[in-house]
């Protein structure tokens, strides 16, 4: 293996690691705030790329229907909840906040789809469609289970994964897509070709991590979210509602997932079910971080990216085996360094 190959593999590794790191951050946040191990997060990656591909071909993406259906179910559940708790006067306001944005987005997509807008506008439309899916899934599937054990929430998350993959096939078919790159530029540094898209991936990751760091360290709401992740009951006692925090963390999960899909859509071909495996690799990173530490999870994501990229060179067929088997020594290490016995809730 010459130096040139190493550079190319490393570049590949860093690009993928950036995506895994973003996904790992979202997974840890969602787990901390809601205790949901959100295995379905990867589906937003596919949904993002496939929704953009539909918009490109001038077809109304199926995800818009999912958005409307979820909003409708959420509205029904909210109505039932408010009627049972006797807070009828809150009903119009609650229904407006749940139903109005999805309806507006659907209308906008309906108008814009045939216009073949510039790529930038289509990216924004895609995000508008996919991001609200996160909070709506939280409302419909997880919020009624807020008091359940981690185990029950995990089973629910796996069920949501099944639904989203099945719907992905229904909406987009079995064919893979490659979305257009954000930039066609090519740069050459010391014999190494770097595509503009890879630079976009790096830049977006850095900007996103910086925004998140600022948000969680400097803003009141970010601090409140960290408080919920640290101690749910304590946060509730000082007036931070866990439901709002849950909604926000799921919004962040769908946003990061969708963005990741748009970023790597031009680099790899994505199918309706590709997202799951990508999400799980982010998971391996998150597990390295013990589902709690953001910096260690980012390091774990780098580890996943590098072992994936280099094993694809040496043992191409065993790439995924290597990545997922790596979790065993990682868990062993965590098990040995975790001094106390963690009691179940």
């Amino acid at each position, binding site marked *: 293996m010459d130096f040139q190959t190493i550079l190319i593999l490393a570049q590949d590794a860093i690009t993928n690691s950036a995506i895994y790191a973003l996904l790992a951050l979202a997974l840890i946040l969602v787990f901390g705030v809601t205790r949901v*191990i959100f*295995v379905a997060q990867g589906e937003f990656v596919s949904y993002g790329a496939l929704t953009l591909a539909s918009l490109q071909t001038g077809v109304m993406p199926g995800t818009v229907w999912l958005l409307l259906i979820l909003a409708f179910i959420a509205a029904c559940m909210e109505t039932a909840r408010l009627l049972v708790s006797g807070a009828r006067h809150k009903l119009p306001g609650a229904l407006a906040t749940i139903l109005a944005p999805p309806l507006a987005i659907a209308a906008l997509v309906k108008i814009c789809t045939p216009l073949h807008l510039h790529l930038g506008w289509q990216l924004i439309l895609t995000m508008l469609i996919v991001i609200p899916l996160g909070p709506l899934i939280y409302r*419909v*599937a997880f919020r*009624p*289970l807020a008091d*359940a*054990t*981690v*185990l*029950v929430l*995990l*089973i*629910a998350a*796996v*069920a*949501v*994964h*099944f*639904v*989203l*993959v*099945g*719907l992905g*096939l*229904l909406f987009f*078919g*079995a064919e893979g897509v490659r979305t257009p790159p954000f930039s066609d530029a090519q740069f050459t540094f010391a014999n190494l070709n770097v595509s503009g898209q890879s630079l976009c991936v790096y830049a977006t990751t850095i900007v996103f991590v910086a925004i998140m760091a600022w948000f969680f360290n400097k803003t009141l709401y970010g601090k409140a979210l960290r408080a919920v992740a640290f101690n749910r009951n304590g946060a509730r006692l000082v007036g931070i509602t866990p439901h709002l925090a849950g909604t926000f963390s799921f919004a962040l999960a769908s946003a990061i997932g969708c963005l990741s899909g748009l970023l790597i859509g031009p680099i790899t071909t994505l199918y309706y079910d590709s997202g799951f*495996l990508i999400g*799980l690799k982010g*998971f*391996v990173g998150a*597990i390295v971080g013990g*589902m709690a530490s953001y910096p260690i999870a980012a390091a774990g994501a780098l580890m996943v990216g590098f072992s994936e990229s280099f094993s694809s060179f040496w043992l191409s*067929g*065993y790439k*995924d*085996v290597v990545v*997922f*088997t790596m*979790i*065993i020594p990682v*868990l*062993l290490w*965590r*098990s040995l360094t*975790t001094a106390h*016995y*963690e*009691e*179940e809730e």
Partner: protein
Amino acid sequence: MIRRAGLISFVMLLLAVPLFPSFYLTMGSYIGLYSIVAIGLVLLTGVTGLTSFGQAAFMGLGAYTSAVLTTQFSWSPWLTLLIALALTIIIAFILGAITLRMGGHYLPLATIAWGISLYFLFGTIPILGGSNGIVDINALQLFGIELRDEHIYYYLIWGVCLVALWISNNLLDSREGRAVRALKGGVSMVEAFGASGLRLKNIIFIYSAVLACLAGWLYAHMQRFVNPSPFGLNQGIEFLFMITIGGAFSLWGAITGAAVITLLKTVLQGILPKLISQSGNFEIIVFGIMIVVVLQWMRGGIWAFVEKLLPSKPDRPIGNSPELAMRIQPERGSKLLRVDDVTKAYGGLMAVKNMSFEVSTGEIVGLIGPNGAGKSTMFNLISGELPRTQGNIHFGAHAISGLHPSHIARLGLSRTFQHVRLIPGMTTLENVMIGAYLRTHDGIFSACLRLNRGSDERVRAEAAKQLRRVGLEESMFVPAGTLSLGKQRVVEIARALCADPLLLLLDEPAAGLRYLEKKELAALLSDLRSEGLSVLIVEHDMEFLMNLVDRFVVMEFGEKLAEGMPHEIRSNPAVLEAYLGGI
């Protein structure tokens, strides 16, 4: 009666299936195979509170091991079964040993990874035939007869399934099984009675993996062809869906779920692609939605409904078994517990500081003090739940500081919990039986095969005796969760007595008791003392203790404030100051 009729009609249905066209026979065989896997998963998920997404991978391990060894090396399938089981036990043990020490969600995450890795390995390793799989696997041979006939194989599968059901049922109704059922409430309770939570969890995980491996082996020699697709992560998830829908808390839920999901899948795979006019596994959408609905509205699954309709099981009367052997209490007045200059520090905070006191055989000592004095910390240092920072604790001739709670329990120390730790779904009698964990020694195998009957009956009789002793005989067969909090505290005492202790540690036993109940409790404790038992009570209620205990140890701010007879303590100015804030 209705239960028996249900069981008979279930067996009749099983016997009758082969009379129908072969499509139903195939369905029946698959349901049987999946039931075997699901039974193991019920034990792991519904009973123990852990879960695995890797059961399909263990199934694949069984199927592929046998497929490769029988086709490539023409080994006998019976030999390959043993090899497959050995491999399964090793892998399950490693996965369990690595993850079970940490939080409950690490096992499912590890099994997701293991499931995916194995699936890709099946598809990539050349000797395993890649995605084409392995063909022409031998049929099983039994007494020289080849089991090629689908009818015979159907009976074989269901025979194995019913045996698995019987064994699992036996296991749950045994000494180890009761401890396993208690694990969901946290490990500290079972460990206080001498069981090892980690060991039990790992045993159950291995047990469920072994059942899955067995099903995979049966599958390989039924199909006589294997490829990777039935052993992927999706199948592993479907097993979990089966028990969620069927009912994760009952072994019958496993069979119900396997039947419902298998039949529904067949029906949906017929209808949905036509409805959508597109091909694909759209049934997973329906399954996913069903699971979310079941989890939100009927967490016990279908079987919980059936269970509600069935009449409750008749209470089996207590037999007349010989009593369990008892310890010989040491001579009255000899030193039993010696706490020697013990300190517990949390960083700079001294929760317990230089505490020393003794408890002699046959006396009741009250450990009292205002809120936050460090009484419960002291209690947990003695029972081994917390490690001490400094000092020594001796129990009889043994130094117990630094020992694991289960080890201390073995020496004859038995405790109750301040926050009641009973298993609400188990009967009061079964809860008390957990106390006798260390008094019989039947292992997993004798439990599975029902060889533990005799000693288990003796434990049952002992638990009934203790319940009679504390005056709760009439509540013996009701779920412990339905008792009032005061009665639950008394059940905790009965459970502790069931361990036949030398020293009874009681953590606030009178909290939540009414006046009369307190009087009865005091009478019970003084009876125990006259039988030679020693008791250390942590308590708030001075009045309750004043006429009961022989001696008081008073704590304040983690230190010993005073020690002496009740009348001395009553007039001790320092104690009055601490309790009443000075008059």
